[in-house]
């Protein structure tokens, strides 16, 4: 087919696809500006920021209670942060270990990867049963945290594995030959060079943990994380304040991405990443 015909068709297809992807989010964003008396559907009776104010407790008391998200938001952020630190650290260490071939490395590899493959509901349920058997109280910072790490660690590991795969070992050897110890070599050479990868691993861990649902459902105990709390409010009645909150969290995620992009840009600029060595030849 001629490009003259093909191009517009592809363009329309692409636009439709993007609309399909972002449609739900756009509807949600529009509905979040519903007026005080309106419900979670069209038509918009009045454009306002009422539900945003309601969310932040800035409206006069009404029959609809505030979303109980303050504590759970804090919990989810803390949990995501903890998971990010532990998973990324583990991911870097494990990938570093995999740089040298060792016995049963294949088995260990699949064992690590298992954490992201097994169904979340099963693992969550199993963890709940296990903690009951052992008499351990379920909590978001204990049982749920462990499962978050089990889930996100493989992602961090795979990212780092890909990074180390194209890492030029001779740079580290050069550092050693200058009398610099292996620990200092890691700190001064390896880490700065793999930093873009570490950032990606952190981003993966954070976002996966932040909206993790199935694993957390059975293991977080009485104090709920954000996704669980929001799900809980569905069982009563849905008001547009959830949409307002959805828009705010999306904005938060975008900020996170922006920070990631900026840090990445800086790291790549500073090191020209890994191309430096190849260009030299």
């Amino acid at each position, binding site marked *: 087919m001629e490009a003259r015909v093909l191009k517009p068709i592809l363009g329309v297809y692409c636009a439709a696809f993007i609309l399909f992807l972002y449609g739900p989010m756009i509807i949600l964003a529009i509905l979040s500006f519903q007026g005080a008396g309106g419900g979670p559907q069209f038509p918009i009776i009045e454009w306002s920021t009422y539900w945003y104010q309601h969310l932040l407790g800035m409206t006069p008391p009404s029959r609809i209670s505030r979303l109980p998200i303050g504590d759970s938001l804090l919990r989810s952020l803390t949990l995501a942060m903890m998971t990010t630190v532990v998973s990324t650290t583990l991911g870097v260490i494990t990938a570093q270990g995999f740089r040298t071939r060792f016995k049963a490395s294949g088995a260990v590899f699949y064992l690590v990867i298992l954490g992201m493959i097994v169904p979340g509901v099963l693992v969550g349920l199993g963890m709940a049963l296990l903690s009951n058997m052992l008499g351990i109280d379920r909590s978001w910072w204990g049982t749920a945290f462990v499962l978050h790490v089990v889930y996100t660690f493989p992602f961090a590991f795979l990212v780092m594995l890909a990074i180390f795969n194209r890492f030029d070992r001779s740079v580290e050897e050069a550092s050693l*030959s*200058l*009398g*610099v110890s292996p620990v200092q070599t890691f700190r*001064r050479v390896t880490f700065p060079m793999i930093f873009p990868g570490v950032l990606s691993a952190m981003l993966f861990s954070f976002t996966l943990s932040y909206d993790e649902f199935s694993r957390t459902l059975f293991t977080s105990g009485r104090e709920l994380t954000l996704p669980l709390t929001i799900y809980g409010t569905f069982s009563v009645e849905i008001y547009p304040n959830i949409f307002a909150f959805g828009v705010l969290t999306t904005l938060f995620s975008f900020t996170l991405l922006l920070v990631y992009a900026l840090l990445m840009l800086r790291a790549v600029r500073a090191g020209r990443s890994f*191309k430096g*060595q190849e260009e030299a030849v």
Partner: protein
Amino acid sequence: MLLLSSVTKRYGDVTALDRLSVTVPDDTYVSLLGASGSGKTTLLRVIAGFEEPDSGVVTYDGRRLDGIAPHRRGIGFVFQNFALFPHLSVGDNIAFGLRYREENPLTDTAEMRQRVADVIRLVGLEGLETRKVTAISGGQRQRVALARTLVTEPRVVLLDEPLGALDANLRERMCDELRSIRERLKVTFLHVTGSETEALLMGDTVAVLSAGSIAQIAPASSLFSAPHSADVARHLNAYNILSGKADGGRFLSDCARFVMPGHPAVQDGTPIEVALRFDRIFVGSADAGEAPEASISARFIASEFNGSSVLSFFRAEDGTLLQVVAHLSGPPPESFEEGALYNLAFNPQDIIPFIKRAA
């Protein structure tokens, strides 16, 4: 003095180093010539400590080096791909070792600046201190790699094909500079290369590495004029090697027979290899009357013009390939006709005979 004795290193079934022994004296430039796969990089890596030998001993001034961590050996390593730290500037690359080394790191900034400035002047990198290492040329990177190693004052510097990544005219300049830098610092350079010209040009002493062990180690000129084995002669890429057997003080093969110089006392029928230098052969016409006593008749295949000389290829009746170099300083060589038969004459005194080792 760096001493390796009976060092063996295997990778699975492949023996990279086979009971290799060599002595590298202090304050010399040793070049190590070996074909690819001869184990030359392995040898450097064993000395530097990136690999441990399966057996054998590496010592420096009587102190055992094998088993010691690489960063405690005091041996510098210049990599073929330079292995510069891509996230640091030229100055920080050079200061890296002094700043972060385990033993006796340099904390005094004034002294640091002084020593970095000194070595930058030594290798000729003035004005580039703050540049990124990705924003300089190949030759400059080579200098940074060298400066980074030299500033830590290692006792021995290992150079793994340091000129391999440079283009030809830069390579020649770096050759001279490497030599003069070494002479000023009085350290030992062990320079690994696959190029015989580079090895002979650079090394005060040249060692030929073949099949995982040192075939010969000698001053460059004597190694070139008197190789100890056909194997060494092959590495020099300046000798035709003919195989045949001894027959009453003569060398006998399918394409040639002539009296061997010095009449080596060997039994008739002993397998013999002889080396005949490319530039000691005189090409004559095949039907120029009586053929001289030491000559081989061969057909011309092709020739290569190398600027100052012409390298011509001939094939003898039995399939032996012969190379002849004619230097252009003399009268211009006649051009040969492809496929025509010529007479390759030489003085039997120029022949170096070797008794062929049993395989």
